[in-house]
């Protein structure tokens, strides 16, 4: 699903002395069917921006087009309803959105709300719960009676149950341990790969995730997009990123340090353990030929 922001401005606390533009006259196009990451310092406007993508926020000025829906400051709330069916949103602590008595009912709530019968909704809910790795023995338990990691997966199943085309992830792995983070990112990536028309927009502080999973990385600062490109292009700009309070993935930090210390050229855009090892091995081989 393609996104197009046209002179988008969002002002917090308008008409008060505290008035600030979180987003400032932004023009931006994000193509559909790709995995896009948005990185930026705390307060750079990235969360405010993505909340426009499913109509949670309406622009103060300008407009935003998501697929076939256009949202402006005076767009009626009713028109945002179908948009939210197609754009799923996972917040930082999605488990805070759980509310039903049983896990199954919680996940089936969304589809029922959008007109599915109880049977249909439960069928979809069961499939989604299985996909996120929740055992059917837990279906009748209270969502508040399982572990934190399980609660988060139930909440995510609830978002996936609406079968969105575009999934917005706002720091979905915050607070999880490394194993949990890895599992969660894999789950999202598998969902994305499953069907051609699906897109993901990930807001993250984890440069490793942005580098590893994205087709494109968008860099925000001060309410505007200041750069965009493939992970390879973006994470080759260590100095520029550090200036706006960001870092490059640890693998890139290591390879750049090695490059500087050894005064020889090597491939520094490696984002996985395997690629980093390979780059170091070829550096050691090259040393032999010099």
């Amino acid at each position, binding site marked *: 699903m393609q996104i197009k922001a046209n002179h988008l401005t969002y002002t917090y606390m308008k008409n008060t002395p505290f008035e600030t533009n979180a987003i400032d006259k932004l023009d931006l196009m994000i193509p559909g069917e790709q995995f896009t990451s948005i990185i930026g310092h705390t307060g750079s406007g990235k969360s405010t921006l993505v909340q426009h993508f499913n109509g949670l926020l309406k622009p103060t000025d300008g407009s935003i087009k998501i697929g076939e829906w256009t949202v402006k400051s005076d767009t009626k709330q009713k028109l945002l309803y179908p948009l939210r069916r197609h754009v799923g949103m996972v917040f930082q602590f999605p488990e805070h959105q759980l509310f039903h008595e049983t896990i199954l009912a919680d996940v089936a709530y969304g589809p029922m709300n959008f007109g599915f019968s109880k049977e249909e909704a439960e069928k979809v809910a069961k499939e989604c719960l299985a996909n996120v790795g929740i055992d059917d023995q837990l279906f009748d338990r209270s969502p508040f009676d399982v572990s934190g990691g399980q609660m988060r997966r139930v909440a995510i199943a609830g978002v996936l149950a609406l079968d969105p085309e575009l999934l917005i992830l706002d720091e979905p792995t915050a607070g999880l*341990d*490394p*194993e949990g983070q890895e599992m969660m990112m894999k789950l999202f990536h598998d969902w994305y790969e499953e069907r051609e028309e699906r897109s993901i927009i990930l807001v993250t502080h984890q440069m490793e995730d942005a580098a590893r999973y994205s087709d494109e990385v968008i860099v925000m600062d001060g309410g505007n997009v200041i750069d965009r490109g493939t992970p390879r292009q973006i994470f080759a700009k260590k100095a520029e990123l550090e200036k706006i309070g960001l870092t490059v993935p640890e*693998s890139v930090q290591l390879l750049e340090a090695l490059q500087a210390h050894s005064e020889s050229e090597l491939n520094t855009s490696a984002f996985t353990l395997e690629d980093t090892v390979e780059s170091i*091995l070829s550096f050691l081989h090259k*040393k032999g030929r010099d």
Partner: protein
Amino acid sequence: MTNDIHVDHLYFRYHEQAPYVLHDISLTVKQGEWLTILGHNGSGKSTLARFFNALHVPKEGKVISCGIDTKHANEWVNIRRQVAMVFQNPDNQIVAPTVEDDVAFGLENAGIPYEEMHERVYRSIERLGLRGLETQEPHRLSGGQKQRVALAGALALRPKVIVLDEATSMLDPTGRIEVLSMVEKLRKEENITIITITHDVTEAMLADRIIVLHEGSMAYEGTPDEILSDENALRKVGLRAPFIVQMANELKRQQVPLPNGVLSHEELVTSLCKLKPIT
């Protein structure tokens, strides 16, 4: 050296039929030490931290904080003043409309006279590098700044121990470095004992000593060098070794002759540059 925290055969469960959340924990934390309690989500590490300042009180076993047995309810206020805590979510622990009021909040509750309170608040603000932000609204600060406000509030109480319960896990990388370097400074210059609760192995590298919790029991104890270089042991308890350790191990598997115990970027880079070329 005196001990600030002493835990003796502590067991804990939420009610009598429930399984044990903490199982036979014994540990001491020396004055001026930095101890990290490392464990995955649900390992019991945050529950354990709550015993240090009498937010939980043992039914089985014993906890002595700053020389006082935490079972005495009349000492709880006193203990909590000496063992300060900073929690994960900065937004949940800020209470006042301005930075200076927030830092003063704990002191007001403790009934400190105005003159002294004033002096302590501004000293703490100064120490945490928050000068110029005194009259700002805490909610408009960055995550790293908010956690420094929380730390300043803790410092103003003149505690012997500061416990940081996942206090950097919601911050971006710069905010994390900002807070941890302040913690290091407080330990060095104020001789405050630091206990950090985390699943972040990079943060654990800063400690003098690490205790790894797994399913409510103490799985390992040692220096960062000992604990963090053992990739398999960490994997067994649901943790990951630091990236550099994983790299060094993988290179060794590929027949690159690296020395043991490589933990930092600098060490790995220097070792690699010293190696004979592969031909």
